[in-house]
């Protein structure tokens, strides 16, 4: 009977990582992911077809608006391919950012009714987007075949860029979801932030359009590196500025650590405030 023993103390004795606790609830993490995936397209007429339609429709719109009408250059690559390669990581990122930022508030019912390590909530909320990503990836490969683009060994680096995209989303998401518990203004900030961020990322246009003297600032956005990385892997575009990319990775690491600490330091009050 004495096997497990819990001490609840008013004093601030929080451990940064209670590994035993996390281990005990590891299955819950996957259950929440599984639920998100299951529920994602329920009660939609088209169901999982949305995962196919979304990137394709966006690609078409971008191709017409930015490629044809605005006539933005695409570095000699067919515009649809050019923009799709960027939309792949971007939609994954945008999904992960939005979902993790709203995650705690969305799980209010759980937070006020049952205990489990709260970090599971934002962490699990970003995973379901990976499924959509994989579906979009398959479409992309089909497009590559249609446009006769050669597939290279560079693709092996994809997991790296995916991880950067997801971790960037999580690091910002941790901050926003924690703030969101107390300040519901954040809800309105998220779509706006996502939109601004998208224009600050070379999705509809090529990063080669950026004037030389601003490149350092521009590439502090980690998604610039991710999107350029995708274009480099898929369509052989030149990577412009790896050194700055590494600086942006440092920024992500900083955000991730501080976001996590902020999350942990207010975790105890979630149920009272939310």
């Amino acid at each position, binding site marked *: 009977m004495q096997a497990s023993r819990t001490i609840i*103390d008013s004093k601030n004795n929080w451990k940064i990582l209670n590994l035993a606790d996390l281990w005990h609830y590891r299955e819950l993490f996957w259950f929440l992911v599984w639920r998100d995936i299951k*529920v994602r397209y329920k009660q939609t007429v088209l169901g999982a077809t949305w995962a196919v339609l979304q990137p394709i429709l966006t690609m078409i719109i971008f191709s017409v608006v930015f490629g044809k009408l605005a006539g933005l250059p695409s570095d000699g690559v067919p515009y649809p391919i050019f923009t799709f390669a960027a939309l792949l990581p971007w939609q994954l990122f945008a999904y992960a950012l939005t979902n993790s930022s709203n995650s705690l508030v969305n799980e209010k*019912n759980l937070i006020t009714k*049952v*205990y489990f390590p709260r970090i599971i909530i934002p962490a699990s909320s970003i995973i379901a987007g990976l499924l959509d990503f994989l579906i979009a990836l398959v479409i992309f490969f089909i497009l590559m075949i249609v446009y006769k683009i050669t597939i290279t060994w560079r693709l092996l680096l994809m997991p790296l860029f995916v991880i950067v995209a997801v971790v960037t989303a999580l690091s910002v998401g941790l901050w926003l979801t924690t703030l969101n518990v107390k*300040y519901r203004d954040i809800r309105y900030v998220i779509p706006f932030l996502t939109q601004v961020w998208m224009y600050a990322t070379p999705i509809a246009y090529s990063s080669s359009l950026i004037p030389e003297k601003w490149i350092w600032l521009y590439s502090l956005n980690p998604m610039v590196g991710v999107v350029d990385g995708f274009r480099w892997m898929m369509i052989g575009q030149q990577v412009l500025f790896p050194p700055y990319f590494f600086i942006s990775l440092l920024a992500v690491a900083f955000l991730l650590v501080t976001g996590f600490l902020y999350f942990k330091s207010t975790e105890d009050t979630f*149920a009272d405030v939310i």
Partner: protein
Amino acid sequence: MSDIAIRIENLGKKYRIGANQARYQTLRESLTSSFANLFKKGNGQHTEDNTIWALKDIDLEVKHGEVLGIIGRNGAGKSTLLKILARITKPTTGRVELNGRVGSLLEVGTGFHPELTGRENIYLSGAILGMHRQEINRKFDEIVDFSEIEKFLDTQVKHYSSGMYMRLAFAVAAHLEPEILLVDEVLAVGDAEFQKKCLGKMGDVAHEGRTVLFVSHNMAAIQNLSTSSILLNQGSILSKGKTNKIIDKYLSNLKSSDNSSMSLLTEGKRSGTGSVKLSGFRIENAKGIPIDFIQSGEEVNFVFLYQKADLSNEPLKNVDIGFSIHELSSSSPLFVLYSSYMGTSFQIRSGNGEIQCNLKTFPIAAGRYRLGARITINGIESDWPQMGIGHINVVESDFYGTGQIGFGSTAPLLISGKWSLEK
């Protein structure tokens, strides 16, 4: 090995009332208030008056295998205590030692997702309550059996009736096997038959030597399940002892309290001319003693306090007052009763006064409800606090006079009737 399952020392929990009322802050409010505090700091005083101790100086030891009932009015701190023990919220003072795996059941259907099927929800809810997948696999058939919804196992839960939903949800929860089980008011649901089954299951749990802490307004359930109980009042333990004694004490306490009237005049959103305003209400039993809790079926008086705007003695004629009772989850009332429906209207002269309405048999099942009221004069709205004027708490009692508890709070209206077989 000690035989103490739960040791609570000097436990306290302080809430900011402001944080409770305005559910969340906006960034702007927070920025402006921290700005305001910047200037206030000169006084060197921290405002303590908008905080409330939901629990204070709780010391308690619960032995292994003990089934402890926790009794008290709404706001006495029962749920806060369970929430602290369940590690949902953190105490402000004190310390708790829990020896054994803790499972909590603070709500029926925690983690259920309406879009998922019954089968899927068993796994999801089980995992959220802390069960492992193998454990759920092992108990799956038992859970389905217990819930009696086998046919609908692969139907989305949103298509379930509320009874089916509750049965499934409770079935999952009832198969948790923690050494310490915390239960909050979950038996106030479902039909009588199923309630009995749940009580039986809980009884099994209790007899298996597990420690159970059990909050309920259902005195019959507390009496059935727990041998000892504590009575909480305003965040402190008023007494601890044999369940029978504690229940007696609780019921006699309910009757004598006197704080159900409150000032309404400052309450927010309201419409009407304002010539006569509602300033408060209280509820009295048949003897005219103010009460906090209404027992289903008892005789009660609803007393409404009003205030006339102009101080002249000019009488106002044709004053009609009505009140309504709403379920918390619904905006449409369970009933509305205006004095004019009963052929009564009032003439108001002086500045302040009371109007009361006597109900012979209070027809509503146990639960918490919102009370609304409105005054009209010559058919023109004089005052209508749109968010209602307060809440009332109804506790279970022998409404039918037969000892039957009836259908439960999913059917909030109670009526009695005479049954016979036509020859």
